[in-house]
């Protein structure tokens, strides 16, 4: 309420400014482009004009791939994660009427969606963790039994946090070993910050949401 009153007061003050004051303000200076239009390359990158190495182009996962990959990563029965058709269209799935090419740019809208989806799915996975068996089945076994949708532990499959984070990094991004070290360090920090919440497995939820929104997961 106080904040609203303050905004109102500022707005009223702006409205009651004397007109001659406004006329005395000088025109704004013309805009100058000060940025270097040439893109800055990472250290050691060859000059663009000399680049003759053909590589595969980056690609954002499509809506179909996201749906099926969510099932695969969390070891859910195929078809468990299904985005509403209208939402899938918004996220780039073509309808071949208005849109004939799949839109695969990681747009702000798409990233906002991924953030929202992670905030929805990660707590669901965290809350279901307790119902998943631990030692009943070997950890390598993929769980595809529709009558038992939640099988292996997802967040707490291994004894230590580091091992679990490494597991999650591998599942989401395919990165492991020494290459995963920088990610594990950062995700550990996320885990510790997230753990301050009282939500179920909140530290792992923070890790889960971070991975959901990471380029290493979404681009391949």
């Amino acid at each position, binding site marked *: 309420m106080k904040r609203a009153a303050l905004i109102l007061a500022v707005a009223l003050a702006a409205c009651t400014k004397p007109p001659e004051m406004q006329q005395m303000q000088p025109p704004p200076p013309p805009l100058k482009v000060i940025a270097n239009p040439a893109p800055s*390359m*990472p*250290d*050691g*990158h*060859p000059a663009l004009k000399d*680049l*003759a*190495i*053909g*590589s*595969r*182009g*980056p690609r954002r996962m499509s809506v179909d*791939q996201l749906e*099926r*990959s969510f*099932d*695969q990563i969390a070891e859910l029965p195929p078809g468990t994660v299904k985005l509403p058709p209208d939402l899938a269209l918004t996220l780039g799935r*073509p309808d*071949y*009427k208005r849109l*004939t090419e*799949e839109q695969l740019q990681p747009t702000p809208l798409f*990233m906002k969606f991924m*953030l929202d989806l*992670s*905030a929805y799915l*990660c*707590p669901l996975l965290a809350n279901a963790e307790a119902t998943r068996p631990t030692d009943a089945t070997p*950890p*390598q*076994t*993929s769980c595809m039994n529709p009558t038992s949708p939640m099988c292996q532990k997802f967040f707490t499959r291994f004894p230590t946090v580091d091992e679990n984070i490494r597991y999650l990094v*591998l*599942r*989401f*991004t*395919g*990165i*492991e070993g020494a290459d995963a070290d*920088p*990610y594990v360090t*950062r*995700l550990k920090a*996320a885990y510790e*910050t*997230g753990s*301050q*919440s009282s939500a179920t497995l*909140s530290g792992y*939820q*923070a890790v889960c*949401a*971070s991975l959901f*929104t*990471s*380029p*290493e997961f979404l681009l*391949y």
Partner: protein
Amino acid sequence: MRIMTVVLTLVAFSASAQADAKCELAKPIDGQRLLRRLSLDLRGYTPSYQEAVDQRGSAEVSAAKLDSYIQSADFVGTMRKYHEQLLWPNLDSAELDPLQQKLFRVDMDPGMGEDFIYFSILRALFLRSVTQQFPICRNEPATFDAQGQPVMTPLVVNGQTVAMQEGYVMVEPYWAPGTQVKVCALDAMAPASGTGRICTAKARMSPYMNQTCNQFGVYPNAVQPPVPFNDAPIACDSAFAFLSSECGCGPNLRLCQTDETAARLRRSLIDQQMRVVEDVVSQDLPYTEVLTRMRVPMNGAIAHYLRYQSRASFELFGETDATNPIPPQLSYLDDTWVNVDRGGRHSGILTTPGYLLKYMSNRGRAHRFYNAFECSSFIPGGPLPSPQEACSKHEDLTKRCGCDACHIRLEPMSAHWGRFAEYGFTPLDEGRYPRTAAGVCTNFQSIDQLFRCFRFYNVQPVGEEEAYRNQLRPYVFRTPDEVAKLETGPRALAQASIDSGAFASCTTRKLWGYYMRREPTPDEESTVIPTLAADFKSGGYKIKDLVKKIVTQPAYRRMP
């Protein structure tokens, strides 16, 4: 909220990790990430944990693993997606459920329970309305007169008769056998002969029907001798059946559609087209069969539509296709797919209803083929000249300046579909649709014949079309070479593309782009692509082999 805050602070974590990295453009990705890339591209999802565990310590993905991905049913699914991007399947604009055969469900007791009556808006206007538009029938059982016609009783509002209403009958609909639904009796009519009479004196008692009969009645009188019209018999499954008060939806409502049945039909027609692709890929048949295969699958929804409903639209021409037999065992709810061996001028996906109805003009059909299978587009050479210039006045688009640049190439291609109905899917065989109008546009026996004459024949030519008077429209402006193409059908176009190498080259380029996520470089265009295309052709057009060769290219496994 707290979790969200944490997320927001962490979104950039990996970006900062990247900023520290050296340029790794030329570096091949490791085995684990290559496996992930292959799994996403070839199966559509990330590897399982077991696969990731098995991959540990290996910089390469084994040939056996790659083969297992390419041989999987999931690969067929990704190929389906790929072909959707080529063919753009969407039939929302196709009039598969014209208003004259559409049933709407109305809740007669909203909020209190379920008491639905099915009715046709068009019949409501034509057969019940006096002044009130679209009146539904009474929510009480119908009674019938001695001739089997529903007894109509007036609906009086403020002392005025605003509509004549009948009651409902209970019908077991074809879409839900074993159940009964309420249907307005006029909409449920099912004459045993399958025919009714149009614009009868009784039907004309409705002012809207009378007006419509007068409008349509002009055409039969425009030819000599006049075409039989008032009281003339009409097949209840034809487009003009809406002018008959004796025709309804037929036994089990089989002539009519609801939103749900129309949606299922649209899905089935798209699925049919894609199943042709799936069959070719899954059976490792030559990929050319996508364009030339005579065998197509058919399910109950398509069979029912072709059997009872496809002839009811004015816009979408769907006469019975004798070269596309309907399996007699398929009933509407049968969702199994039965293979049908087509005959005549059919050719792969190019003559499936899904393709012909998505691209309703012959030019549109040719253009999609040109783009999807020959990697070419029609791009105008420049702005159109003034319409006042003499060269802008040609009716023949291959001569009209500004249009000629594209149409010189497009018209011969589009000629291949000349013996398939535009805005429809029916082959126009020589017996029923001879090249000249003599057999069709004389001695008119029915309004349906008159309709077919004016729809398909150039009986009112304009300007340069005069030289082609009374010709079947697709023959207008055709050269002898184009006539030969027209009479052979789309298979000749596909075969020419296959023989020239354009098909192999385009398929290679398209798949390269699909898996590499970029166009070939000029260097690749002159080296790798021709080699892959030549191997594809000499190897019998095996799509799996081509995909395997593309994803094992060094470029595929490089960063990013």
